[in-house]
């Protein structure tokens, strides 16, 4: 479904500009960034015109990002690319205007706003990739975590650790904690995709992940398994 980009932008432009107090002293901003800030913080036609230019900039960035990832997006049809870019630019514009006061001048303003478009495009592409797909909430198989040649002793130690971890996931976690942990950490479901499916927030899922990891760590420690890494970055 194609969204009219301009129409979604205009209501933002017609609203009063938020008070902007850049965190960076005005004297440290480059001239172009200062002009952007002044125009976007102003009123009337000048602000509307700046918002229009900003949207064009964001759209170019979003199109670039969608195009850059095009080869890995076989599920997208022709018109989908521009549709996603438009949506990304629209949402990035709203985000930029809401966070204008956070701009510190540590980079050029255009560089700063580019990141909003790239982020929105990345999120939307991830969501599209999982659209209408079943979310795997149970581990299909346990990954082969060993990524280097192991000695027999090391292999035995890692097998013991993985077995204990599997048992802890099954026994120490609640049903929903287990599903969230497995989906995100073992099956690579993006957290924003899972949040959208469950009609919840990323923060709520992060909290559940944090609690689940704490439980697992405690369970493994109680079983005598030390999860601190040695110099080689492998669990001891």
């Amino acid at each position, binding site marked *: 479904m194609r969204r009219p980009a301009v129409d979604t932008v205009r209501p933002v432009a017609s609203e009063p500009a938020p008070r902007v107090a850049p965190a960076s002293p005005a004297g440290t901003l480059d001239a172009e960034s200062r002009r952007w800030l002044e125009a976007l913080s102003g009123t009337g036609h000048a602000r509307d015109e700046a918002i229009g230019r900003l949207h064009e900039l964001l759209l170019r960035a979003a199109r670039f990002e969608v195009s850059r990832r095009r080869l890995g997006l076989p599920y997208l049809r022709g018109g989908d690319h521009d549709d996603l870019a438009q949506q990304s630019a629209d949402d990035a514009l709203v985000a930029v205007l809401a966070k204008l006061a956070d701009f510190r001048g540590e980079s050029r303003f255009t560089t700063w706003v580019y990141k909003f478009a790239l982020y929105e495009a990345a999120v939307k592409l991830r969501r599209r990739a999982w659209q*209408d797909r079943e*979310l795997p909430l149970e581990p299909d198989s346990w990954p082969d975590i060993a990524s280097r040649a192991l000695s027999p002793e090391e292999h035995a130690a890692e097998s013991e650790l993985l077995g204990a971890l599997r048992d802890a996931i099954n026994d120490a976690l609640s049903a*929903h904690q287990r599903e969230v942990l497995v989906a995100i950490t073992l099956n690579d479901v993006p957290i924003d995709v899972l*949040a959208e499916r469950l*009609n919840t927030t990323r923060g709520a899922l992060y909290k559940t992940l944090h609690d689940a990891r704490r439980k697992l760590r405690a369970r493994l420690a109680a079983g005598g398994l030390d999860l601190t890494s040695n110099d080689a970055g492998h669990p001891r």
Partner: protein
Amino acid sequence: MRQTTAQSPTPALGEWRRRRLIAAGFDETLAARLTRDGIVDLHELLVLLDRGCPPELAARILAPLDTPAAPS
């Protein structure tokens, strides 16, 4: 408690949510009611169930304040 924006889910998403709730222990009628309008935070529902809260009570706890309670 976070209130989500009312937004009817797509049929496929609604069905996925309904199946999730039934698998977690909600009866079919309650699961269908909770997923119909796309208002309730399923994650919070399932967290409450994890803590031993009965499904019907979890649904009442998370029901939006500004909508009349549906008959159970």
